[in-house]
């Protein structure tokens, strides 16, 4: 019954005119950037973070969430119509979606992916509703040592599931943690790595860093590659045939389940979900030879999976305050900007925000089906805008956004600096996401670490004596060990090569 009360509260918040408008705005922006290759949700949310300061907390979080799951819908349009992934999570949709489009079934592919995404989004939202309370209750029993261990597990798991070298990703986490320490030490008031720059004494703002690492660096890399676009294909009828429907329903169900599971894992999220769902479909199919040639399951399953994962990846952030990917790290940032400390307290202290956001996600998903299907023609037109128009526009929004954080040009210069650093990261094959997670968790993790050590009188054994902490640390160690095993290392490498190819 309490659940229904909560949902009713959420519904009353979510259907207020203001929140509906911001949900719609978020979904529109999300679809827009999803459709446009070369700009992703991470860069966009980073760009808009400063602006959310001017909005009420609930509206700003609803809008940012809308951008994130809206991008999952929009990304599939580009994949299907022009064989370019609009988003990383729709890379696999290119394989069969574009082939379906070439056979004149573009409309069917689009509507199956939109309906599949909607179904998956709905299931994802229900899962959040069911698990939010028990997880939050559990988290309230956590002491400082447990939190520290939980963050360690989150960071390590994020690293393990990211592509590329594990050692490098771990080093990136530590680098992020180190950058997170810049500013005034909370316990002693000492200035750390501030170089006498007054803007740094409040701590380093991660919005300019995220803009630099994900926005600017991405623009530079795209300008280098001279992003080419093929001509868009005609959409055709949106109605799938009976055969297509029959084949896609089980695929959507499987994709949703797999995506929802993988989304909860730190470092999981939409990309991993979509990719695993595609592999699973190919293995289960009676006609594996059709995959890559326009199999409808190859569109339905990954599209359902990336949406389910996008929804469930909110679970660790909302209940524990632990972000599981770069977008969630930014959502944590958005909460902090609004003066809300993410963690189990959000649900008890701000129930209207918590439940309002969850219900609005479902409403947003329903809006997205309408935004994406009947209005498909508008998005297709947008695809013809060349990148050389977009790049300066994105740069400009980043600069103005960074300035408006504290009305200081220092933040704009910071964007430039982290743009260069981000470019170096890309060239050296170091991923930005673990860095950002470390950066966001750094200050909290240090706080918990110091508190735990103070409580235990300097005995590091405290982390092994508390059962919760011990369990979490054992899991962390196991994950790291698993990665070192040669057979798993190889399988992991193969999985990611296939993803890239």
């Amino acid at each position: 019954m309490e659940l229904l009360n909560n949902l009713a509260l959420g519904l009353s918040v979510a259907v207020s005119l203001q929140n509906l408008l911001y949900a719609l705005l978020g979904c529109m922006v999300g679809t827009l950037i999803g459709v446009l290759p070369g700009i992703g949700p991470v860069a966009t949310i980073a760009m808009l973070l400063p602006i959310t300061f001017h909005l009420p907390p609930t509206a700003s979080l609803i809008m940012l969430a809308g951008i994130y799951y809206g991008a999952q819908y929009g990304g599939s349009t580009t994949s299907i119509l022009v064989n370019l992934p609009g988003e990383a999570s729709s890379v696999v949709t290119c394989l069969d979606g574009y082939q379906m489009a070439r056979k004149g079934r573009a409309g069917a592919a689009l509507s199956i992916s939109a309906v599949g995404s909607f179904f998956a989004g709905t299931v994802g939202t229900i899962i959040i509703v069911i698990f939010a309370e028990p997880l939050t209750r559990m988290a309230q029993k956590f002491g400082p040592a447990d939190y520290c261990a939980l963050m360690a597990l989150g960071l390590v798991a994020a690293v393990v599931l990211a592509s590329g070298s594990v050692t490098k990703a771990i080093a990136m986490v530590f680098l992020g943690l180190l950058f997170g320490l810049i500013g005034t030490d909370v316990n002693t008031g000492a200035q750390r790595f501030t170089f006498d720059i007054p803007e740094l004494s409040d701590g380093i703002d991660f919005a300019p860093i995220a803009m630099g690492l994900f926005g600017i660096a991405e623009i530079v890399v795209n300008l280098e590659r001279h992003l080419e676009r093929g001509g868009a294909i005609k959409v055709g009828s949106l109605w799938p045939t009976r055969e297509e429907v029959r084949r896609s329903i089980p695929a959507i169900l499987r994709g949703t389940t797999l995506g929802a599971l993988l989304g909860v894992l730190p470092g999981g999220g939409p990309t991993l979900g979509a990719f695993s769902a595609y592999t699973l479909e190919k293995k289960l199919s009676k006609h594996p030879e059709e995959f890559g040639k326009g199999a409808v399951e190859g569109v339905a399953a990954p599209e359902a999976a990336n949406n389910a994962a996008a929804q469930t990846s909110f679970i660790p952030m909302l209940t524990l305050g632990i972000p599981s990917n770069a977008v969630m790290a930014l959502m944590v940032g958005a909460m902090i900007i609004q003066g809300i400390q993410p963690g189990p307290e959000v649900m008890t202290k701000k129930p209207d925000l918590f439940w309002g956001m969850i219900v609005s996600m479902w409403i947003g998903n329903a809006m997205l089906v309408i935004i994406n299907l009947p209005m498909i023609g508008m998005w297709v037109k947008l695809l013809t805008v060349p990148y050389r128009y977009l790049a300066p526009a994105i740069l400009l929004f980043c600069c103005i956004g960074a300035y408006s954080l504290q009305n200081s040009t220092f933040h704009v210069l910071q964007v430039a600096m982290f743009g260069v650093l981000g470019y170096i990261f890309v060239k050296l094959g170091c991923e930005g996401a673990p860095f950002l997670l470390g950066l966001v968790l750094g200050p909290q993790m240090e706080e918990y670490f110091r508190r735990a050590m103070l409580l235990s009188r300097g005995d590091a054994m405290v982390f092994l004596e508390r059962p919760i902490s011990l369990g979490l640390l054992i899991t962390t160690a196991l994950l790291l060990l698993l990665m070192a095993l040669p057979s798993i290392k190889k399988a992991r490498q193969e999985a990611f090569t296939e993803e890239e190819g």
Partner: protein
Amino acid sequence: MNRFLSKDFLSGLMFIAFGLIAIYFGQKLAQGTAVRMGPGYVPRMLSYILLGLGALICVVAAVSGGEPVEKLKWKPLTMVTIGIVCFALLFERAGLLPALVVLVFISSLGGEEFKLTEVIGNMIVLAILCTIVFKVGLGMNISVIQGVW
């Protein structure tokens, strides 16, 4: 291909460099004890871990080789960076419009195609859009042209 110019080896060097920088600039921070940690305790711990991981990455890369670094193209990076820096310098002194014109112009030079009419068109559209969104819509305290509006 020189094995010391692989992505892995160079990124190892980068981590070592960051570790050393943090140790150097964190020297003055009191370390404290494990019970009452000073402000320097955690930074120093992290720096040592970074040094260790960097060294490990370097050694592994030097022994087994790795993917070579892609050739750098300087033009997009330089143009984009100069563009942002110019924007930062102009924004408060001259206002949004001049900063915008300079940023769009310089960053467009970074792309492969540059058509002046297109760039000017882009500037006009963006100027109108930004004024409406940021100045009028969000009511931000910025001037479009310093001293005029």
